[in-house]
C-alpha cells in the first residue's frame, strides 16, 4: 500500500509540475507577444541580456566554429579523396556546420553560460524577495524578467549561429590552406560552397537556433523561479536548468530534423 500511495503521490506531483510548467510556458508566450506592444521598462533587461549572452559569447563561438570547420574539412578530405568524391566536402561542411552542429553547439555554449546565470540570478532574486518587489510595484515578473531573457537568449543564439556558420565555413578554408599542398583560391572555394549552399540550409539552422533559444531560456527561467526560500536551492536550480536544457535541446533537435527531412 505504501508503495502504491507513494507512486500515486509522485505521479500527481509530477503531473501537477508538468501542468504548471506548461502553464508557465503559455504565460511566457503570451507576454512575449505583448512585449513589443507596450512601452518597455524591460528594454534594458533585453539589451543587457543580448550583450551578455550574445556578444560576450562571440569569442568562444568563433573559436569553436573554426575548430569544428577545420576538423570536418581535414577528416572529410582524407576520406573522400579515396572515393574521388572531393566535391562532397562542400555538402558535408554545409550540412554538418550549417544545419546541425552550428545551432547545436551554440545552444550548448549558451546553456552553459547563460542558462546557469539566468537560473541562479532569478533564484537569488526570489530568495531576496526582489520578485515580490517587482510585483509590488506592478511589474509582472514574467513580462519584465522572463520575456526579455527569452527574447534576448533566442536572438543571441540565432545571431551566434550565423556567426558560427560564417566562422565554421571560412575557418575550414583557412585551416585547409595550411594543410593542403595545393591551396584552393578563396574565390573558387566560396564559389563552390555558394553553389551548393541553399537558403534552406541557412534557414533550417536558424529555425533550430530559434527553437533552442526558446528551450534554454524558458527552462532556465522556470528553474530560477522554482527556488522557494533557501539560498541552497539556487545552485540546484542552476544545475537543473543546464541538465534539462541539454536534454530538451537534443530532443527538439531530433524532432526539428525529422520535420525538415520528412
Amino acid at each position: 500500500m505504501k508503495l502504491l500511495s507513494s507512486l500515486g503521490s509522485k505521479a500527481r506531483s509530477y503531473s501537477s509540475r508538468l501542468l504548471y510548467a506548461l502553464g508557465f510556458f503559455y504565460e511566457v508566450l503570451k507576454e512575449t507577444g505583448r512585449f513589443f506592444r507596450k512601452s518597455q521598462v524591460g528594454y534594458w533587461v533585453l539589451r543587457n541580456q543580448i550583450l551578455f549572452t550574445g556578444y560576450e559569447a562571440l569569442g568562444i563561438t568563433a573559436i569553436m566554429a573554426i575548430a569544428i570547420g577545420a576538423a570536418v574539412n581535414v577528416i572529410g578530405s582524407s576520406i573522400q579523396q579515396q572515393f574521388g568524391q572531393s566535391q562532397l566536402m562542400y555538402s558535408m561542411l554545409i550540412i554538418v556546420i550549417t544545419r546541425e552542429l552550428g545551432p547545436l553547439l551554440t545552444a550548448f555554449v549558451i546553456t552553459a553560460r547563460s542558462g546557469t546565470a539566468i537560473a541562479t540570478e532569478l533564484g537569488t532574486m526570489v530568495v531576496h524577495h526582489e520578485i515580490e518587489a517587482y510585483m509590488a510595484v506592478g511589474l509582472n515578473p514574467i513580462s519584465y524578467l522572463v520575456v526579455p531573457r527569452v527574447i534576448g537568449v533566442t536572438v543571441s543564439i540565432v545571431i551566434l549561429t550565423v556567426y558560427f556558420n560564417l566562422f565554421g565555413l571560412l575557418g575550414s578554408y583557412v585551416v585547409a590552406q595550411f594543410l593542403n599542398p595545393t591551396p584552393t583560391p578563396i574565390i573558387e572555394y566560396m564559389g563552390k560552397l555558394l553553389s551548393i549552399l541553399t537558403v534552406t540550409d541557412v534557414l533550417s539552422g536558424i529555425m533550430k537556433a530559434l527553437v533552442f533559444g526558446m528551450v534554454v531560456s524558458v527552462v532556465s527561467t522556470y528553474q530560477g523561479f522554482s527556488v522557494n526560500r533557501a539560498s541552497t536551492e539556487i545552485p540546484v536550480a542552476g544545475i537543473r536548468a543546464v541538465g534539462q536544457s541539454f536534454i530538451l535541446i537534443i530532443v527538439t533537435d531530433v524532432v526539428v530534423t525529422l520535420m525538415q527531412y520528412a
Partner: protein
Amino acid sequence: MKFKIKYADQIVGLFIIVALAMLAVIVILVGVNQRWFAKDYSFWTVFSSANGVSPGTAIVMNGFTVGKIDKISLNDDNKVDVYFHIYDTYYHLVRRYSLLELTVSPIGLGSSLLFHPGTGDEPLPEGEFIATADSADGQAWIEQGLVLIPPKDDTITRLLAGVNPLLENVNKTVVTINRTLTEVNRALAGQSSGPAGTIVEDLSRGVAKIPRTMDRVDAIVADVQARTAGLLDQVSSLVLALQVVTKDVGTVTGNLALASDELADPTGLIPKLLDPKGSLKTLLDDDNALYKHIISIVEEIEAAVRSLQGIVTGLNGEMPKIAAVLNETRVAIQQAQDVLEGVKNNPLIRGGITESAEQGSLYGSMREGSFE
C-alpha cells in the same frame, strides 16, 4: 564588484546588425551563385525508373552542371516523367537529337545525369521532350552519330558501358530460354495452348503420320526407282544403239576415206566407178535399195537420237524435282529423327539434341549450290 558597460547599446546594435548584414550577403551570394534571377529553360523527359533521379539532381555535361531536375512524377504508363531546366548559358547546346543519360557510380556513391548535345541546327524550343540514351530513338541517334557523346571518363564506367548491354542481352536470352523451356515443358505436359503446345500436338500427329508417310515415300522411291530403272534401261539400250550406229558411222567414214583415196587416184577409182559393170554401177543400180537402206538407218538414228534427246531433256527436267523430292524427304526424315531424339532427350533431364553431321545431297545440281 561593480561592472559598467559603456556603449552597451552600440555594441548590441552592432552585434545584431553585422550578423544580419552577413546573413543578407550570404543570401545574395547564394542567389547569385545559384542563379535565382537567371532565366532557365525547362524541358522534360521520361525514364523507366526514378532510381538515381530526384529533384535537385544536377545535369552534367563534360563535368559542368548545365541544369537541374525540378520535378519527377509517375505517369499513366508507369514510367517516370522528369521535368528539368537547363541554364541559359548552356541553352544553345540543347538541339535536336540531344539526349540524357543516367549513369550510376560503380561504388554506390550516387548517380549522375549526363547531357549529350545533339547535332541539330537550331536550339530546341522550351518545353520540348528530350529523349534518353536508352530509348529506341536515343539508341538510333547514337548509332547514326547524331549525338555528341564524349568518351567516358574513367575505366570502370567505360567497361561497364560495354558490359551493360552484353549483360542485358544475356539476361534477355536467359529469360527467353527460360520462358521457352517453361512453355515446352507445359506443352509436353499437354498444358499449353500456345505455339509450343500446338507444335507438340502437330508433332505428335505428325509422328503418328510418319509411318504412313514413310510407306508413301517408299512407294514413291520405288516408283521413281522403277521409272529411273526403266529410263536407265532405255538410256543404256539407246547408248548401245548409239554405239552400234557410231560404229557403223565409223565404218562408213572409213569407207568414205577409202573412197576418197580411190577417188584421189585417177587411174583406179573413177574407171572403177564409171565401169558399167563396176560395183558403183551395181551399187547405184539396185533400184535405190541401198539409198533406202541408208535413209532408213539415218531415220532410225535420228529417231533414236531424238528420243534420247527427249529422255535426256525429260530426265534433266525431272531430275531437280526428283532430287529435291529426295532431298526434302531425306531432310524431313532427319528432322523427324531429330525431334524424336530431342523429345526423347529432354534438355532438362538429359541434355539436348545431339549434333548430327550434315550429309551432302547425292544429286547436286548448280541450283543447289551457292553462286560464290
